[in-house]
């Protein structure tokens, strides 16, 4: 009896000890060797700032989008709007007052809770700082805090694309007590900043308390490879998990690499050849049409860009509502004979009487632009127009563009908000940027009308009409719409590409 009781006790004790010890040891072991899931992202862009009130470039936006949340987001993989910090929103009849209902219980990295006051503060702060994107807030007359979780934007004029605008990074909420947001950002987003070494890398760590739940990786290292060739090498060697900014010429070879997955989507960025309508010979519609017919678009798309872009026939890219596929029938196609004829009709038979025209570009961020320009130079030479390419740095380029000091230019347009309004108004109306000096009162009127309507179908009809009028005037030579490409390693899952340059590391998983 005694003996057996002792055995029983011993067995019981042993079982208890083992039962406690084994999980302890196991957890201890796993804790002492935490498998950190690190996602390494390679990009060619170097962020300029991490302050959402100052950021107006893709590189900064990529980082800011993962540290902060905006009021409105996108449905996965589309440019359709979806709730983010705002659960829902509504407007009055004529789209001039917008009310946003905030998600409750959203916390900043420092523990502050998100409230309507903070949204108001963030907008006021951005307005006060007058950073590069601050003009986007000009439409806002005042912000009203309705209650703790409801905020109302009163606009200066009816503006139906407003929710699309609220997806821009400047609508990120920042905590009022933060200082030095440029270098030490504090957001509500899925990642926190660990370190940022200019020109080298940005390191983000997971925000375990994120309101959508913790991200799937512990750390994101965004490594900057200013040279696209080295970015490609790094991808092929497996040094990086995700590559952003692979050059068009590398895409074909990489798409055949069995170890690498390619994600691509039609973008919303458009590239065109602009002309200065204020000057001869560009004030002549026939001359502009001649240029439109002189360019070998297929060569540019297939040889230079290697199928990494689709043709742009009119003012709007195909991926946006309001685009009318009819334009593919009435738009301009390569026809050098017709171009020569139009050139003669314009008063310059075989280019006689023309001075040497200057084409300004900035190829620092888009290397293929140099090649496209060289093709255009040759195409125009063949019909008798001599041009000289001048490759400028981006700031001098903008300087000359906005001082209207150019004959021709090539540039791309990156929408601030995904609505046809953001192509038509800034680029083609006299109350827009007015780069080219294009002036058509019908376009002015229709574009104004379109931004005041709330009914989607009515708006679409107006944009179709606008498209036709603009193409007929040939203010530009419409070139192409680059596709977006991201290359990822086989073991990386969950990455979703958006037509707008929204790079979300939150759902990305590493197997």
């Amino acid at each position, binding site marked *: 009896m005694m003996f057996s009781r002792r055995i029983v006790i011993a067995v019981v004790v042993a079982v208890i000890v083992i039962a406690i010890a084994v999980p302890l040891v196991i957890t201890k072991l796993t804790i002492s060797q935490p498998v950190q899931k690190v996602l*390494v992202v390679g990009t060619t862009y170097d962020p*300029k700032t991490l302050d959402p009130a100052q950021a107006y470039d893709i590189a900064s936006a990529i980082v800011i989008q993962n540290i902060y949340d905006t009021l409105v987001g996108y449905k996965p993989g589309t440019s359709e709007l979806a709730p983010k910090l705002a659960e829902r929103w509504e407007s009055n009849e004529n789209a001039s007052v917008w009310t946003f209902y905030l998600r409750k219980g959203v916390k900043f990295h420092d523990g502050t809770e998100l409230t309507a006051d903070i949204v108001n503060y963030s907008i006021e702060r951005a307005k006060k700082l007058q950073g590069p994107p601050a003009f986007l807030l000009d439409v806002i007359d005042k912000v009203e805090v309705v209650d703790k979780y409801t905020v109302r934007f009163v606009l200066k004029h009816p503006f139906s694309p407003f929710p699309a605008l609220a997806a821009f990074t400047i609508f990120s909420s920042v905590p009022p007590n933060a200082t030095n947001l440029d270098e030490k950002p504090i957001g509500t987003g899925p990642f926190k900043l660990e370190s940022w070494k200019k*020109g080298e890398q940005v390191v983000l760590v997971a925000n375990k308390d994120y309101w959508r739940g913790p991200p799937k990786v512990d750390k994101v290292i965004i490594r900057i490879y*200013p040279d696209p060739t080295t970015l490609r090498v*790094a991808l092929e060697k497996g*040094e990086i998990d995700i590559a952003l900014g692979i050059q068009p010429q590398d895409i074909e070879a990489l798409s055949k690499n069995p170890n690498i997955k390619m994600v691509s989507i039609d973008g919303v960025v458009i590239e065109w050849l602009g002309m200065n309508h204020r000057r001869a010979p560009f004030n002549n519609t026939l001359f502009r049409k001649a240029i439109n017919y002189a360019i070998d678009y297929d060569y540019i798309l297939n040889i230079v860009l290697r199928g990494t872009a689709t043709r742009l026939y009119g003012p709007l890219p195909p991926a946006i509502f309001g685009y009318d596929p009819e334009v593919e029938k009435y738009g301009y196609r390569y026809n050098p004979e017709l171009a020569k004829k139009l050139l003669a009709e314009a008063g310059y038979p075989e280019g006689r009487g023309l001075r040497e025209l200057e084409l300004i570009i900035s190829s620092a961020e888009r290397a293929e632009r140099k090649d496209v320009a060289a093709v255009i130079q040759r195409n125009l030479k063949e019909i008798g127009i001599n041009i000289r390419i001048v490759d400028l*740095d981006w*700031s001098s380029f*903008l300087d000359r563009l*906005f001082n209207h000091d150019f004959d021709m230019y090539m540039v791309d347009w990156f929408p601030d908000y995904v609505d046809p309004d953001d192509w038509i108004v800034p680029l083609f109306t006299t109350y827009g940027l007015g780069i080219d000096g294009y002036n058509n009162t019908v376009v002015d009127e229709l574009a104004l009308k379109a931004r005041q309507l709330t009914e989607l179908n009515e708006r679409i009809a107006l944009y179709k009409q606008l498209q036709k009028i603009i193409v007929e005037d040939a203010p530009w030579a419409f070139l192409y719409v680059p596709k977006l490409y991201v290359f990822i390693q086989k073991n990386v899952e969950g990455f979703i590409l958006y037509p707008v340059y929204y790079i979300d590391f939150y759902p990305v998983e590493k197997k």
Partner: protein
Amino acid sequence: MARNIAQYIFYRLIQAVFSIFGVIVVVFLLSRVLPGNPAIAILGPKATPENIEKVTREWGLDKSYFEQFLIYISRILQGDLGDSYVMGYSVGRLIAERLPASIELVVFAFVLSLIIGIPLGILSARKHDTKTDLILSTLAVMGFSFPSLLLGILLLIFFGINLGLPVSGRIDPRYSINVYTGFILLDTLLNGNINAFLDAFSRIIPPALTLAIPLAGLLLRLTRNSVLEVMMQDFVRTAKMKKLPENIVMYKHILRNALLPIITIAGLYFAVLVTGDIVVETIFAWPGLGRLIWEAVSLRDYMVIQGSVLVVSIIYIVVNTVVDILYMYIDPRIRG
């Protein structure tokens, strides 16, 4: 004699200070001949009125050129090179971050070129007027004539494509290395991370070779000629006649005398190299000063361009001065 040395050093230092002052004047002039409002050139086209006002006030741009120059010089003396509004940091900080990478690359390349150049030079001299000498001399001229553009591309192809080694940047970003010295080869060792060290080592080789090969060609020629010159001198002949084994003659007498001019030229070249080679750093994405200047050029970040030119020139002047003084200590003959 001692007074001569002191005089020489004093003269040399005065000259260096004068040169540095001159460089500051040149850089100042360059910054003021920019077209248009210098404040806008500094800030870029997105300049806000407040920033323009701030920059105008900070640099006294509304005052006379003379006053502007005084402000400029007093800020430089305080170590303030201004702010890069394009890159969003102070120029001093940007340069300080990039300088170690350039120095590391140059020191490595320099050692590499010494290892290649000097032994081959001695060999060439010992076998002078033979086929070996001819081949080595030819290689030397070719090496010296190699533009870094071509050499860099060839090494990029060879190491990156043929050997499949990483050829960009200093280290794989996944190695988290605590920075102690800023020199990645040292830091990886101090971290005890051998794999990281090997990675960094394999990445420094191609850019370092690109810098080292032309320099090795130069050193080969130099070593050959000065060893030859000394070999022809009387005391070596005497030693030979005394039938000392050739190797001892070689190393004891010849090398000691021949190394002098090599050190000077090498020092001079080092001063050039230390300023960072823009082409090489661009080809291999080496995050050094040269790369910074390239970035600044493509963004037309004038503050960074000016600051870098200033810093680089000052380093260049200082190194040159030090080399001159050292050389004078080593070789009393040049004190004229």
